[in-house]
Every structure is written in C-alpha cells, then in structure tokens.
C-alpha cells in the first residue's frame, strides 16, 4: 500500500500552501449550498424502505442530483487544493462549509441567530485559523 500512495514530491512552498488553503476556502463556498440542497432533498428520500429502493429514490430526485453536482465542483476544487499542502490541515477546513450554511440559513431562510450559533461559528473559524498556522 505504501508504494501505491507514497508521496512522490514534497511541494510545501509557502505560495503553494497559501494557494491550497485558498482553493479549499473557495470549495467550501460551493459546498455550503450543496449541503443545504442535499439535506432538504434527503428528507424526501422515503424512510423504512430497503437500501435498493432508497438508492433509486435518490438517483431520481432532481434537487438531490443538483446538490451533488454542486458538491462535484466543490470536490474538484478540493482535489486541486490537495495537490499541494497537507491533507491533515486542508481536510478539516471543509468544516467552514457549516459556517456558510449557518450564515446562509439566517440570511436567506431567516433562521434565528442564537448564542450557540455565534460561539459555534467563532470556534470553527478559530479552529481553522489554528490549523492553518500549524503547518511546518
């Protein structure tokens, strides 16, 4: 396994690391609407049916397919980001998606803002900052 996925080149120059962080950041901007659409569409996937019926219901659910298309864009940008930079730093940054989801929910769907959400958003942003500085 290690020969299959060994690291062929070390490419951790500061500019490339910054570019990677930026790409992950942009990928979360696509991931947030994808997440909102997929979550709401998943509610329409029938419960208490077998896995095959569930799979068919998912594949024929247009909003779900649209959500996954947006997720595909987000996925593509994430892949470009992973070309350089550390996986252990870049991957958790995807959690920013939930920050955008929270902001979008308040802004567009007029969900209420509350202390849990404010502290939660703060903790995720702070965590991403700490991670970003943790690289070599």
């Amino acid at each position: 396994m290690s020969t299959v996925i060994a690291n062929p080149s070390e490419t951790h120059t500061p500019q490339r690391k910054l570019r990677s962080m930026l790409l992950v950041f942009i990928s979360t901007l696509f991931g947030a609407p994808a997440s909102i659409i997929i979550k709401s569409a998943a509610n329409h996937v029938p419960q208490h049916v077998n896995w095959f019926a569930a799979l068919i219901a998912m594949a024929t659910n247009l909003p779900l397919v649209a959500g996954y298309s947006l997720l595909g864009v987000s996925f593509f940008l994430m892949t470009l980001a992973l070309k350089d930079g550390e996986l252990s730093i870049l991957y958790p940054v995807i959690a920013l998606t939930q920050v955008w989801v929270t902001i979008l929910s308040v802004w567009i769907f007029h969900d209420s803002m509350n202390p849990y959400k404010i502290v939660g958003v703060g903790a995720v942003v702070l965590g991403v900052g700490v991670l970003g500085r943790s690289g070599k």
Partner: protein
Amino acid sequence: METPVESMAMVLFGSFIGSFATVFLKSGAQRLELNVRSVVTNWRLGMGVVVFGLSSFFFVLGLREGQLSILYPMVAAGYIFTLFWSRLFFGEALTKGKFAGIGLILAGLILLQFGNK
C-alpha cells in the same frame, strides 16, 4: 426524537470510509496534471470519488432518522481518522496545533447543531 443506534452506526461507518476517500484523493491529486488523459487514467482519483460516494450514501441513509446534533459531529469524526491516515500514508506530523484546531472545529460543529434545534 430518538437517535437510533443504526443511524449512528451508519454515519460513523460513512465517516470512516470517507476518511479513506481523502487518502485516495490526496495521492491521486499529487499525480494530477491538468489534461484529460491524466484525469481519466488517474485511478486513485476515481477510487476517491467512488469511496466518497459510498460514504455519502451511508450519510444520507443514517441522517434520515435521529438528531442532527448527535449525528453531524459523527460526520466530522472523519477529520480525526484523516489525521491519523495523513501521518501513516503521507508522513505528515501530528502536532498539538492540529489536534487543537480539529478540537475547536468539532466543538464548533456541535455548538452549531445545538443552535439549530
């Protein structure tokens, strides 16, 4: 609303599988050049997409029932798995900063889900 054990198991299993998807993606991305041939013949990327899709399938199944405030942080458990795979497969350092950062992110995600109740 009760959170069924099967839902928790499916979500945790999904995040476990998903953490391997990131390993395939990273190793594929490192070999990626931006031309069609390079993308199409990159089986590691393909595996990453397939495994990621599989993990999403378990997420959607698991998230149908139960409380998101309990289930969603389990999705994020994948970050912790990924931290160890990064060390194992890519030799990335396990630093206090990474644990602290991921800890803050997990705490933040749990709070966000409480706020969404």
